[in-house]
């Protein structure tokens, strides 16, 4: 009879041992799965975050580039206007100088002819023209300063726009590189069409 009890205990022991082995295997398999899954999720989230961040960086820099480009165009227009105004005043100055030369040669003739009335009249006119010339020179100097500062503004904006363009190429992945190439190609074709 006791053999039966011993046999039963042994059979139970073997069955429990098998069940334990199975449970351990299952646990180990699940632990490996858990660890792999954790790493995979971490990788995936890091990749997702980096992709989104790069994409946002691209959109942000592209927006800043657009704004910088637009303002640069306006700065260029303003500079060209300043240049035109400056040339306009230079033209006025040339004309005034020509007139002064005419008055000076008239004065020489009047002095030779000893026409005192004419001499006084020309001298008074010369006075007015000289004052006008001084005023024009003052205006020209102011417009020259303005033109210079418009030019500096335009150049610094141009540099900022170019910097942004290279930042997009270098920091925004393949999207940024494609965008850069497209911009360069467009600029090149525009340059070619302008000759």
């Amino acid at each position, binding site marked *: 009879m006791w053999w039966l009890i011993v046999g039963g205990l042994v059979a139970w022991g073997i069955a429990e041992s098998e069940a334990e082995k199975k449970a351990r295997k299952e646990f180990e398999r699940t632990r490996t799965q858990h660890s792999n899954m954790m790493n995979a999720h971490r990788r*995936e*989230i890091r990749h997702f975050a980096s992709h989104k961040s790069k994409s946002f960086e691209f959109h942000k820099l592209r927006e800043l580039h657009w704004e910088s480009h*637009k*303002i640069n165009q*306006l*700065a260029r227009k303003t500079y060209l*206007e300043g240049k035109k105004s400056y040339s306009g005043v230079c033209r006025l100055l040339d004309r005034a100088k020509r007139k002064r030369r005419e008055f000076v040669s008239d004065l020489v003739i009047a002095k030779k002819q000893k026409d005192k009335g004419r001499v006084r009249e020309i001298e008074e006119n010369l006075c*007015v023209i000289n004052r006008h010339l001084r005023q024009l020179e003052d*205006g020209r100097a102011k417009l020259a300063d303005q033109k210079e500062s418009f030019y500096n*503004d335009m150049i610094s904006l141009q540099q900022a726009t170019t910097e942004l363009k290279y930042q997009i190429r270098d920091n925004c992945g393949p999207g940024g590189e494609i965008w850069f190439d497209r911009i360069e190609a467009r600029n090149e074709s525009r340059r070619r069409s302008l000759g």
Partner: protein
Amino acid sequence: MVPDEILEVVERLNPLGFIENMYARKLSYKLETRKLKNEMESMRSQADLLKRKMGLEYDIRLEQIKQRRAEMELLFKQEENKLAQLTITREQVLRMAENAQNSALAEGISLEEREFFASMSYEYIRQVHAFGESSRQSLKNLLGAVERNESLLLTEGKQ
């Protein structure tokens, strides 16, 4: 009857304790496995949630950029119109300065007239300079708006 020696051996070996240990280990493995499976499930849902949140934040930021573009387009349009108007006015005033100078340099006019037209011409030139300063102010306004926009975008980029 079981002989006493065998009972002693069985008692020493304690087969029930051995089986009990195996059973406890089996249960503990099963419990740990269940715990890991639950953790995996929650990890999966947390990762999905995080990705959805990040995606949503990204969409909101892009929408903000789009809104800014619309605002900036409007501002650029306004300032462009203002600058175009200033250009026209500047050209007109420069022509007026030329006309005033033509009169100032004309033959057969009185000294007073010459003086009057010459100073009028200078006054117009000062106006041309003042218009240039207005253009500069317009550009400054735009630049200010762009810089504000830039700092906002940079702040958002760091979030």
